[in-house]
């Protein structure tokens, strides 16, 4: 599904990613764990297509397509979803309008019919219910005045509506209490299946108790230094990055 080969990237002339090799097959959930400053967020932004990151080498294919040649919106339409570490507030943009515009843009790009306001509302209500979220959430402006947990839940709602093939969860656990963490994890787990892959990027092992990965990769100083089964996360938690990676 996602294949990263020798990916190097700079921010303002400073090398951050120094040769990433990583493959996430269809239907699998992989975790990328690493200490602060290892390049975790850069990796997720580069994959989603944010400006300001200079790709200096390597390639990324997504579902057989050259991901790095695509605009951010094309990546989303192709089925890539980034759950933001810090979801952005959009004052003056209603959440329902935002969600419907996004969903219809993606549906249009995929050659599917757009949903009218009534059809959308019906779908959104069903997703909200499945995620144990209040309907109030879609009546407010996007993320404005949301608590940290509400923002992350709104990310999961967007994911549930857009039904991506690959979700990148960028430190989705940061700032979440245990109840919010469970809701987020349940949302991701509900999507697991042969058509859904995820890359769970995190500093701590905690989230991986709830979203058990098929494989764990250790990112340090811009490189994957070790890969292993889910138990590697526990090892990292117990012994620290420096020792495990040594």
């Amino acid at each position, binding site marked *: 599904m996602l294949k990263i080969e020798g990916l190097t990237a700079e921010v303002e002339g400073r090398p951050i990613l120094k040769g990433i090799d990583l493959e996430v097959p269809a239907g699998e959930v992989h975790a990328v764990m690493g200490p602060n400053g290892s390049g975790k967020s850069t990796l997720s932004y580069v994959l989603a297509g944010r400006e300001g990151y200079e790709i200096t080498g390597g390639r990324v294919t997504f579902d057989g397509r050259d991901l790095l040649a695509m605009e951010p919106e094309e990546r989303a339409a192709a089925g890539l979803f980034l759950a*933001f570490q810090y979801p952005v507030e959009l004052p003056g943009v209603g959440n329902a309008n*935002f969600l419907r*515009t996004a969903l219809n843009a993606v549906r249009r790009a995929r050659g599917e019919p757009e949903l009218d306001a009534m059809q959308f509302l019906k779908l959104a209500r069903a997703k909200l219910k499945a995620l144990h979220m209040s309907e109030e959430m879609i009546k407010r402006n996007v993320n404005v005045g949301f608590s940290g947990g509400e923002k992350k839940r709104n990310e999961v709602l967007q994911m549930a509506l857009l039904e991506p093939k690959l979700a990148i969860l960028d430190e989705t656990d940061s700032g979440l209490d245990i109840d919010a963490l469970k809701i987020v994890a349940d949302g991701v787990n509900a999507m697991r299946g042969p058509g859904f892959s995820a890359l769970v990027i995190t500093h701590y092992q905690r989230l991986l108790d709830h979203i058990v990965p098929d494989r764990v990769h250790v990112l340090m100083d811009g490189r994957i230094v070790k890969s292993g089964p889910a138990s590697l996360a526990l090892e990292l938690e117990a012994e620290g990055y420096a020792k495990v990676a040594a």
Partner: protein
Amino acid sequence: MNAMTTGAEAFLGRFEGLRAQLPGGRTDWVAALRADAAAQFRAQGLPGRRVEAWRYTDLSPVAALGFTEALTLAEERPALPAARAPWRAVFVDGRFAAGLSSLPPGLAARSLAADLDAARGLLGALAEPLPLVALNTMLFEDGLFLEVPAGAEGGTLELLSIASHTQEAQKGRPIAFHPRHLIRIGQGARLTLIETSLGPAAAAYLHNPVFEIAVAQGAQLTHVRLQQEGRAGFQLCTVLAAVEAGGTYDNFTLNAGGRLVRNEIHAALRGPRAACHMNGAQLVADGQHADTTTFLDHAAPDCASRQTYKTVLAGRSRGVFQGKILVRQAAQRTDGYQMNQALLLSEEAEIDAKPQLEIYADDVKCSHGATVGALDEAQLFYLRARGIPAATARAMLVEAFLSEAIEGVQDEAARAALDDAISGWWQREGA
């Protein structure tokens, strides 16, 4: 300085030639009013940038054009856009077009030129000593004369101004017209006025309207102005409003058209508990200059005023906001608020903002603020990362930026007209 003098003299010269032809030309009180205005205009001239109120807006392009007064030309019947309200007063080149209008019964809506005698004592009653008001008084050819009777539920009336005579303009003779609108809302009465001004795309012309608006005790006027003049046109509009006790004047102005436009509003809150909301959106594209200048005079206690202006600038364009709030000594417990914000979509765009508070009362709540910024890259990326194409994402963020100023427009017809005007602008200029 020379160009300005020339511009003023040309207007004065045409006034001398037209004196007898102008409405009320043979009526003493009107002739005297016009002569006084001419003397004032002769003394002041077209305002230059050395005048503080005109520091950011340069009228020399207006002064440089030799206009033909539209009054001297035959009447035209241009095509009209679809109606927004059941009743509509249409003005073509500043003159009332009876055949194109349908006026509401019971609101005493008529042509000012046709009923000038009834305006004696009202016309000029709210005039300030402003050069463009003097120019208008000197040369006005017509206008809407509306007296909503006390207690009347006036509904919604559309005021449509169309600049025509494109052929004259193509011959290098741009036209000028100076409508004078008298709007009087009787005690406890209500009215929504949706005013749209349109003009040909490529022809230069000058539309110099003056509104004198009197809102009586407990009355309410919602005035929605959709300025969509042609891109080579000039609109210099002055609104003079006086609100009595418990009355409300709401003005929303969209500045979306024209080459150079000024939306100048003077509102006086004259009785206790009067209120004024002045909101606006300026959409300024490459080559355009849009100026909103407000003057809020709190002259009585317990009054409230709210102003929110948003300016979006694209290409090489310039926006101006000047807003002064005067709180007189008598105006205790004034509640005043003013916010102006600009969104620059281009590095070549410029905004000048000058808020001013002048407060003589001691028990007052008054605040103002201003911001200038570009589209937020993080917001743009967030939308695009959800599959929303870049152009749509930008439009959504511009709309969100404007929303605070626009949400006050509650009347459905006005809101629909406004939304259409904004999306039309975005399709033409923004994306």
